[in-house]
């Protein structure tokens, strides 16, 4: 994103709309004593400043993004469509259609580690740290995930090293593993948490058995706490043949 300094009046209305505080006001020598400018290292290309429509003179301009900067928009702008899945957003359909796809079967647990969430942002290099850790634990990366498209799934490393410094609002590593491996994976993530230069949220997906998550006894035994709210696929879809 750019701000046209010829148009900007320096009103500052757009500043609070940026989720990562990448916009600041600077002294100017033109028509107005100050103008807004974007820190392009911090900007995650979510487009929120322009989409908010708050600028009275439409000074926010979205230039065409080349490689690798376009990755920022991919993981930050919810309307950006990832070419492989043709889905907007940052992830896949995962458990949302599990009653039809049977992607997560009984005996399996789905894991989502979302780096940068909520609202802190992350470089892809930080995401890679978690990706390498999970690969070493033998998880199966979700093939449809935008992140999986970037990595060598054997090692979890990013194939194109030029993208590592790109900054995004959040990026999800999606994978699955046998349900019994959940405590080992959780312990490894907790150990790595101190070395990650951002925040991350953890999702655990499980099929239900007698209305309860199949993984629940394992989580209870390992003292893995989950919040009282989450997402439930209530199972009204019909399985594809």
């Amino acid at each position, binding site marked *: 994103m750019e701000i046209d300094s010829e148009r900007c009046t320096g009103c500052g209305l757009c500043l609070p709309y940026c989720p990562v505080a990448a916009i600041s006001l600077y002294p100017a020598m033109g028509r107005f004593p100050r103008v807004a400018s974007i820190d392009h290292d911090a900007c995650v290309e979510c487009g929120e400043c322009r989409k908010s429509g708050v600028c009275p003179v439409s000074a926010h301009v979205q230039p065409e993004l080349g490689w690798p900067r376009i990755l920022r928009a991919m993981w930050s702008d919810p309307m950006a469509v990832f070419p492989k899945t043709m889905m907007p957003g940052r992830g896949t359909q995962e*458990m949302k259609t599990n*009653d039809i796809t049977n992607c997560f079967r009984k005996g399996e647990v789905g894991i989502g580690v979302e780096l940068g*969430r909520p609202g802190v942002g992350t470089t892809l290099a930080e995401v890679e740290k978690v990706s390498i850790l999970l690969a070493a634990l033998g998880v199966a990366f979700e093939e449809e995930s935008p992140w999986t498209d970037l990595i060598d799934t054997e090692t979890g490393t990013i194939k194109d090293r030029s993208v590592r410094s790109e900054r995004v609002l959040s990026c999800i590593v*999606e994978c699955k593993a046998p349900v019994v491996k959940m405590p080992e994976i959780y312990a490894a993530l907790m150990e790595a948490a101190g070395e*990650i230069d951002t925040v991350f*949220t953890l*999702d*655990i997906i499980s099929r239900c058995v007698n209305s309860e*998550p199949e993984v629940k006894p394992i989580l209870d035994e390992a003292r893995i706490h989950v919040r009282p709210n989450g997402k439930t696929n209530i199972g009204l*879809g019909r399985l594809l043949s």
Partner: protein
Amino acid sequence: MTHSNHRLGSPEELLRDWIIFNTDARPLDPKRHERYMQILTAHNPVCLACRRIEKDKTTRYRYVKGWEETKDAAKLPYSTLVEIGDLRDIKWGSAVYTNKKDVEAVVRELKEADLGISVVVSGLLGGVRSACEAAGFEPHTVNMSAGTYGRLELLPEARILEITSMCGHHMVSPYLVAHMAREVRARRLTLTDASMEMARQCTCNFFNVERCQELLQRLAEG
């Protein structure tokens, strides 16, 4: 993947925060989706969104409760519940509710309608489970939030996170929440106008504008 999975708040507050939406992995059937949308519309949603196929393009429609009362209502891209209920050729829809009884009614009617559409309910897991069981079936799969880790000192204060986490893509900036709280405190904006301004930023329309008003009032009061 985690869109509506990490909404923060106490269990008592989350009793007023439920989302129902669909994602399809099967061929589209507009007739079934129209019926699905009619059911969502009929049970007092505070926010509603849908996508409609019009020739070769998709158009989004949004409703937010109370939008007509805001100072910029005429400029806002919202529709009424009646307008959305009358739409045809729908392919996706979502709704936010603040009452568990409404969620139970939607779940029961969706089960009875037997549309074959994958439906996700976000909210208190025990509440969703009991809604399914009351309608005579068991839930299929859950996605649980196991918390936030790493450099927690980078996060905004919890009262702000309770508001920002209602937009799963984090399009509602914590700085905007703080700014809106100041505007309400200074009586330059009403709670409705300030909440609507934040709801407007949530592309998916999952932002619970009614709960936002309660949270923002507390924030503005300090």
